């Protein structure tokens, strides 16, 4: 007899429907899966056989043929286990099911008949809903994410036996309830209140958050660069619902959701400098999201920037410029979103203590120059702010005075963002993304401002590339003050966040 169970598979961040067709017929006993299965799918045979047996059903000693349609796309992973088992039980008439019309099922089976979570369930739920499916039978651990999709009945299942009971109407499950859609609810484990001192660095990160500017931090070991970077997400605007869903989908596909509902916090990713290019931008025979995608709508932190391999930095070019990455494979080409704020950290010199004031640096100026020179011009161009972060004197670390909490900083950031959005006229637009044309339109200087900036560039020996960056930063500084006109004060402060434009000072 022939049975058909609907399911879906993930490609990139999207899912496409797959029909599991099961035929059980005469001939020598056999179990064959066709339709471009990979090894994990081939191994399903053993899991499905054991799971059926251990759920008090039988695996017939007949010829079982399973086709995964469409047959021209490579199938991977264990998510087809459950629909295959259901199909075999239907085809051998061990169960009768009426509730499978307009339904999809998926899940990995364990040998005892239990159902294990699988990646990408949110993507599958979204595709299911879009394709007119009204019911999804999903592993219990994945049910929360599936329930985020409105208009879909989601049943959380723990075992094959439970699925058969439900389908036969013996013990009908109640659908999982969706959580309310709200833009609030982020709960960060860290807060700026924990950072003592660092007034200048805190101000710089507030400006970075307000204008969406990438930041490079230079400072000795233990200065708190990692600590500061980790807290940047806490002062960015909260994720709106659609952004939260996008991030949740990514983490689901990457198999990193672990049963949690929507991700409400902006991601913070900190790949080690030995991370491969493939792990950074995504890869695998069936492409999985890389670090740049896991950082989507959040912060990508590159600690020890000079230690990253040249080709690793090279592959960051596309995500930084276009906000997405393309991963090409023989089978398919997929695109992952990758819009993030880039934060990087490095030491000021080979020994780490140049400019520290507390500990003497024994590096020669040419050693320092060579070290700083490892950050190439094009890479440096990615950062609107480069700031020097000092070690906080131990006396100041001891202070019990609470520092300003993240919520207060975020309130100012939100006000500055609202001004940018209004001026630039599109949702989520910020000063960091202004094109040269917009920059000239919105960062116009009067005669006095022009004279000031020209004099500063000349007297302080700033490099030529500094000019536009200073204007862009000054715009954000003015937005934080709700000022329409750029003044010399805004320009002067902006210059202070451009350490690498002043190579001589970095050596002084």
């Amino acid at each position, binding site marked *: 007899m022939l049975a058909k169970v609907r399911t879906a598979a993930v490609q990139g961040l999207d899912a496409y429907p797959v029909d599991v067709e099961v035929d059980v017929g005469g001939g020598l006993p056999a179990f064959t899966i066709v339709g471009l299965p990979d090894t994990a799918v081939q191994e399903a045979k053993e899991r499905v056989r054991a799971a059926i047996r251990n759920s008090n059903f039988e695996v017939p000693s007949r010829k079982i043929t399973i086709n995964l349609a469409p047959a021209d796309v490579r199938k991977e992973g264990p998510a087809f286990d459950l629909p295959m088992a259901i199909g075999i039980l239907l085809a051998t008439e061990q169960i009768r099911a009426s509730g499978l019309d307009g339904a999809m099922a998926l899940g990995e089976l364990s040998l005892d008949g239990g159902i294990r979570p699988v990646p990408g369930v949110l993507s599958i739920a979204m595709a299911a809903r879009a394709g007119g499916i009204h019911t999804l039978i999903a592993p219990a651990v994945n049910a929360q994410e599936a329930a985020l999709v409105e208009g879909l009945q989601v049943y959380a299942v723990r075992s094959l036996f439970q699925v058969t009971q439900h389908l036969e109407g013996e013990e009908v499950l109640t659908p999982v309830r969706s959580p309310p859609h709200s833009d609030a609810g982020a709960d960060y484990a860290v807060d700026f209140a924990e950072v003592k*001192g*660092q*007034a*200048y660095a805190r*101000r710089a990160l507030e400006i970075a958050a307000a204008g969406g500017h990438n930041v490079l931090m230079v*400072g000795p070991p233990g200065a708190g660069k990692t600590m500061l970077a980790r807290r940047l997400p806490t002062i960015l605007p909260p994720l709106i619902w659609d952004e939260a869903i996008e991030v949740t989908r990514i983490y689901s596909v990457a198999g990193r959701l672990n049963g949690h509902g929507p991700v409400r916090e902006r991601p913070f990713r900190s790949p080690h400098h030995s991370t491969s290019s493939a792990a950074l931008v995504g890869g695998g025979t069936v492409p999985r999201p890389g670090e740049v995608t896991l950082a989507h709508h959040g912060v990508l932190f590159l600690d020890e920037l000079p230690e990253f391999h040249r080709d690793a930095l090279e592959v960051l070019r596309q995500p930084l410029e276009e906000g997405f990455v393309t991963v090409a494979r023989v089978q398919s080409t997929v695109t992952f979103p990758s819009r993030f704020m880039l934060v990087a950290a490095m030491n*000021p010199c080979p020994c780490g203590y*140049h*400019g*520290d*004031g507390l500990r*003497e640096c024994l590096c*020669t*100026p*040419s050693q320092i*120059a060579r070290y700083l020179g490892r950050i190439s011009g094009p890479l440096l161009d990615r950062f609107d702010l480069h*700031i*020097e972060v*000092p070690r906080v004197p131990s006396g100041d670390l001891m202070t019990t005075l609470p520092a300003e909490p993240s919520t207060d900083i975020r309130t100012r950031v939100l006000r500055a963002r609202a001004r940018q959005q209004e001026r630039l006229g599109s949702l989520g637009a910020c000063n960091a993304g202004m094109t040269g044309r917009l920059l000239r339109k919105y960062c116009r200087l009067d005669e006095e401002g022009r004279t000031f900036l020209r*004099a*500063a560039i000349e*007297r*302080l020996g700033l490099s030529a590339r500094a000019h536009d960056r200073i204007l862009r930063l000054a715009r954000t*500084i003015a937005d934080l003050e709700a000022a329409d006109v750029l003044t*010399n*004060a805004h320009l*002067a*402060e902006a*210059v*202070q966040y451009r350490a690498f434009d*002043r190579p001589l*000072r*970095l*050596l*002084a």
Partner: protein
Amino acid sequence: MGDNDDIRIVARDDEEYPSALRPISDPPRELFVRGTLLPQDEIAVAIVGARRASEYGKAVARRLAADLVACGVTIVSGMARGIDGAAHQGALDGGGRTIAVLGCGPDMVYPKEHAPLMQRIIRSGAVVSEFPPETPPRPEQFPQRNRIISGLAKGVVVVEGRIGSGSLITADFALEQGREVFAVPGNIFEETTWAPHQLVAQGARLVVSALDILDELKIPHGSVQRPAAVSLSDEERAVWQQLSFTPLHVDRIAANCGQPVALISRVLLSLEAEGLVDALAGQRYVKKV
């Protein structure tokens, strides 16, 4: 390597050979010269000191050099990092003449980061060496060249130096050659002040201003002019009063002023653009003189 075209050999019997060097006990047979040696360079003062110098020491070297060139004195030094570099810098910034005596060939740039400084020295004075072109810097050559530094000058000012400092060798040559030795006092808790204080204990003349040098060497000086008073805004004055020659981080300056760091950053930048403060690595600031 620099180009050899502009290197001249000045032998002991050439007219251009510095007359001050002729009477010393071991005058170089010939000098390799880039730039010009003028008769007025006879009135010269050497300023030397530590390579790893404090901001205070460098500020003193710059200031003394600038004040001395204002009275027509040529500044001689060794173009090393730290005090030497600051002395040349001060002379050049003051619009005066300066001579760098190298411990390597005159075509070698050592240290490398002084390449721009070296070009300025060649234009406003001379780079000289007794070592022929392409001689690399070797440790044993530096003490030997110190006798030329002292020999070219009427007096040697030691600004900073640790125990065993090379500046003491220059001071010894100076005494041997009958030149005056001057020493600049500093903080007794800093290791960099050991050499100048030692020299004072041995009878060197204590220097607290260029006048001490000019008077001792009987160089006429009308009046050493002070930099024109600049008018500071109230904010600038408040920040300026927090500064010294000990580098201070912007966070500390802001805390001391009781003002937001955003405001203090802006004020510091304008003070820097006006040439009143120096910004150092690590967002630290010192007064500039």
